């Protein structure tokens, strides 16, 4: 079995296992929704070397697009989801096109500034977005003959979409396009010199990432019945990025781990102690200092430590982009 199939199998196992171990269908859906968003973020960070602080833009706009469509039109659910994916892709193309004009830290700062721009845009146009209150009472219509009203029925719908998108992202990552992204990540100058249209590749990666994130945002709005302002704010971008890095940027399944960890731990801790973000902040520092390959790296080490641990067969499909000895120009 090759690595991609193994990772897909692991993702499918997660989707099947969540209902067995979790009592809340809402929380289980949230895990898979953020797993999509984190995997899309990983396509940029892990595969293209672009640290985007703007993923919340696409997530939030996806929420608004789906919410507005379902509130104001009688279009079917599937079309609302497609519209939110298109919204994510179009805006990500624009943000990507502008942001990649600068490299390294400037790029990161630009994506963060854009996330502020879209936050204030949503905040300013209260008539459309509902401002601080968000878009309320978003319906969750049936898809074909299947009612999605019950939380586990909705979970099943989310799980199917999650697996489809996961497989699609894996196809993208292993295609010639995906391989070229790795070349861009590892040595942009060389990729350019060979003759690859590096700019177009980066913008395409942004568009794909934006589409998946927009769809995830739409699914989230349908899940909670609201498209809140917090879906487009700084902390949404930050959370998606944190999930991605905590999981590890070596492969797409790592993002599923990262999202699962973040969503479940935040649910557990926030009910015990509302200021749990303090611990999260500490955890980020620990990850940076001691766990640079994230949870996936930890898992790898565990498997290798097992007596019958299969050597290397579980290794990540791509080398970690983040090598401590590099000079830090890799973003």
């Amino acid at each position: 079995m090759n690595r991609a199939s193994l990772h897909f199998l692991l993702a499918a196992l997660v989707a099947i296992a969540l209902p067995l171990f979790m009592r809340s269908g809402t929380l289980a859906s949230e895990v898979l929704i953020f797993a999509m968003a984190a995997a899309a973020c990983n396509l940029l960070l892990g595969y293209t070397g672009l640290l985007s602080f703007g993923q919340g833009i696409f997530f939030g706009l996806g929420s608004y697009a789906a919410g507005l469509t379902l509130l104001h039109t009688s279009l079917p659910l599937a079309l609302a989801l497609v519209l939110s994916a298109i919204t994510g892709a179009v805006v990500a193309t624009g943000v990507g096109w502008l942001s990649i004009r600068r490299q390294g830290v400037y790029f990161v700062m630009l994506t963060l500034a854009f996330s502020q721009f879209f936050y204030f845009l949503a905040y300013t146009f209260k008539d459309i977005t509902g401002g601080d209150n968000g878009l309320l009472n978003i319906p969750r219509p049936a898809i074909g003959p299947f009612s999605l009203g019950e939380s586990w029925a909705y979970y099943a719908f989310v799980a199917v979409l999650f697996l489809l998108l996961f497989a699609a992202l894996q196809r993208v990552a292993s295609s010639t396009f995906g391989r070229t992204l790795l070349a861009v990540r590892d040595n942009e100058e060389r990729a350019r010199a060979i003759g690859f249209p590096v700019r177009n590749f980066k913008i395409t990666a942004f568009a794909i990432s934006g589409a998946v994130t927009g769809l995830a945002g739409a699914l989230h709005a349908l899940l909670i019945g609201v498209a809140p302002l917090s879906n487009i704010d700084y902390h949404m971008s930050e959370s998606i990025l944190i999930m991605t890095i905590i999981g590890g940027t070596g492969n797409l399944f790592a993002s599923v781990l990262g999202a699962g960890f973040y969503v479940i731990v935040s649910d557990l801790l926030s009910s015990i102690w509302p200021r749990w973000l303090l611990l999260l902040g500490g955890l980020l520092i620990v990850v940076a200092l001691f766990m640079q390959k994230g949870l996936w790296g930890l898992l790898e080490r565990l498997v290798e430590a097992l007596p019958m641990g299969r050597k290397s067969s579980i290794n990540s499909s791509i080398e970690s982009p983040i090598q401590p000895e590099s000079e830090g120009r890799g973003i």
Partner: protein
Amino acid sequence: MIYLFQLVNGIGLGMLYFLLAVGLSIIFGLLHFVNFAHGAFYLLGAYFVYDMTERGLNFWAALLVAPFIVAGLAALTESVLLRRIYHLPHTFHILVTVGLALMVQELVIILWGPVGGNVSTPGALSGVLMLGDFIYPQYRLFVIGLTLVLAIGLWWLLEGTRLGAVVRAGSESTDMVSLLGIDILRVNTAVFALGAGLAGLAGALAAPIRGVEPFMGVEALGIAFVVVVIGGMGSYTGALIAGLLVGIVQSIMTTLWPEGARLMIYLGMGLVILTMPRGLLGRA
């Protein structure tokens, strides 16, 4: 008259943005380190002044002490933690400083609550200045005056002193500076503390104008990024011009379109990036 009022307001705001951004800029120039915790130092500066004045301490004493406490905390953070991660890629710089910023924000909420509060304008400057038709709060004029003096002092520090020379040389080549027998580790700590202290001072000065709340750090970080993106990272003059520009645009827009004022800042940044990808005065 309202535009003159907003113009002067904008200059005051812009000078605060300059203080905030120039710290970020010189830290990056010397250490090649993106400090996502910069907004947290601004937040701490504001809250220290809030806390001290709530306890009955004189505002001026609080204003003097708060930036130094912030700088001290920054020096400690730099020498205990950040020094260990300079060799790592930027991703980890961002991860660690985002973690720090989160911790500071949550600590602020734990210590002072989620709501925030107001810092009353110090008695001596609570009045207004009247020049014919032009009426202006004295405290805001004081902020403009003080930040101007500080801007000149900082320029002298960077251009006219030995420390400034080391900082500028270090921005070009850290190794070379080390080879000349200069203890670059101490310079790094000093510069980090200076940059953070300036952010803390900006927060302290802003507190009586805008009040304090736990999320002002995130907002300040966004603004500081806009200023350095427009002005060009590592450029003192760039930070000054861009800071003033952003402050004035925001102030004037507050009159024309209050809800959209902050939106316009980010729109302006987009325009600069489109036309001048390197910023107004940026190097490579």
